[in-house]
């Protein structure tokens, strides 16, 4: 059920291994493409509390 208080989730104190919430498959040993610096700068400019402050009415 959706909580009547609309709580944002918190990290579990003792996370249990669940479907889709485990470590998943190990990463392949290859060089991964990285995020360009300009985009990283854009990410650093995001207010880290923006989602906490973002409240909307329910729509359809």
């Amino acid at each position, binding site marked *: 059920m959706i909580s*009547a208080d609309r709580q*944002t989730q918190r990290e579990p104190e003792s996370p249990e291994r669940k479907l889709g919430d485990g470590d998943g498959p190990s990463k392949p040993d290859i060089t991964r493409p990285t995020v360009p610096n300009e985009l990283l700068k854009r990410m650093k400019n995001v207010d880290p509390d923006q989602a906490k402050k*973002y409240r909307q009415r329910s729509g359809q």
Partner: protein
Amino acid sequence: MRPILAGIETEYGFTVEGRSVHDQIDDSMAFVRAFPGGGLSLWDYRYESPRHDLRGFDVKALAYDAIDARFDQGRARPPAAEERSDRVLTNGARFYNDHGHPEYATPECFSLRELMLHDLAGERVVLQAARAFSEKIGRDVRVYKNNTDYHGASYGTHESYLVPRRHSFAALYEAVTPLLIARQVVCGVGKVGAEAKGPVRYQLSARADFMQEAYNLETLARRPVFNTRDEPHADPDQWIRLHVICGDANLIPSATRRKVGLVKIALHLLDAGLAPTWRIPDPAESFQLTSRDADGEGRIVLEGMNWTTPRQVLESYLDTFDGLNSGDEELKSVARETRQLLEDRVTRPDEFRRHVDWAAKRWLLDQFREAEGLSWFDPSLQSLDLAYHLLDREEGLFFGLVEAGEVEAEIPLEDVIERETQAFEWGRAHVRGLAVEKFAPQIRTLTWSNITFSVGDDLVTVPLLPDLRYDPASLGVESVTDFIAAIRSANAAHETS
């Protein structure tokens, strides 16, 4: 195969500097009314029937969100038509306030490409309205093409498909529901965290937490995987409108085309009596299990303690569709692309993420998270998730990915701009838009399925047929009586054909 008319309605999230969720309905009304692009505010609400159910009954009342009711305490709501602030645009689209969200309903389209372009044109219309609203009130207005506020409030991106009335509720439900669950894998927009059912790091779908039942009529609470609203916006003896409410608001254009194309494939299989049979006892549970398994294959629980994967379900639709030898090149392209993506997800993840929102967003956030040493449960990750959906080319993270070439190439802007003011297919949306452009003084009301004109002392209502492509030459007339005669003539020829 019959061409399937389809449309997309998106409710946008937005914030206004210095205002709160308590002001959202007033602000959404003012937002829509600020749109500088014209249009006509004469929507006819008599043809709305959200309480009719496909199963053959009406409900007395629809569920209302309890938290929203608290926001409304002590506030008088304006009359419904005033609150809606409806506008019909010259491209045949409808732009209005829906439950405190600016909503853009695209013109109905037969072609997937046209629909995708009109969805993008909708983003630009909403942005133009936001900028005009911001200038008017002198406050910053931010718009998000997304579906959740991370606090348990969700707002939809709905799809509509024209379906022959001969299909029963049960047949339609069984043909479409497995695909709606499975398509998240190639169409979801992703979400950091959860708003129901315990913690999770990352999900495929922004809407999955809100899909609580298999089927029902509701849209504001107890939302179902399969919505049973029976509001065809066409002759109800001939047509059903399949109303899909479980999809996400995509930023990657090909994902918009794909999500609609896959449902059209399921509907063609239904028409042919060949829809794959998957017995899923709890579609809501399987929807959520699939969404929560971003690292794995996903799991769809079947009757008799069996289970399958979203990939197997999707491939069952694609295999059967291949057997139809369809001549529909757009749907064949969607089928090929989906097969390739299912393979790429396993073997070429860096290619997969260029075409699928959830994977593009997860890659971006994961890189940042690792660089900054953050947990997936750090609250700033949800702020970055929100920023992916910000409709601002300078600040939005999706547009940052576009600029960096990390997602597929952009659609040519001129193709989108053209559709802000015109529908290019000659379906009923084009006729509606043309009427708004040329005969606005004579129009008394409009709706999806008809227009009422004032001619002399008479009111004349002409139906717009949903499965008809009108002849552009015959509608290029200068008087309203000739226009009405041309629509009637085309309708009559179609009905006797």
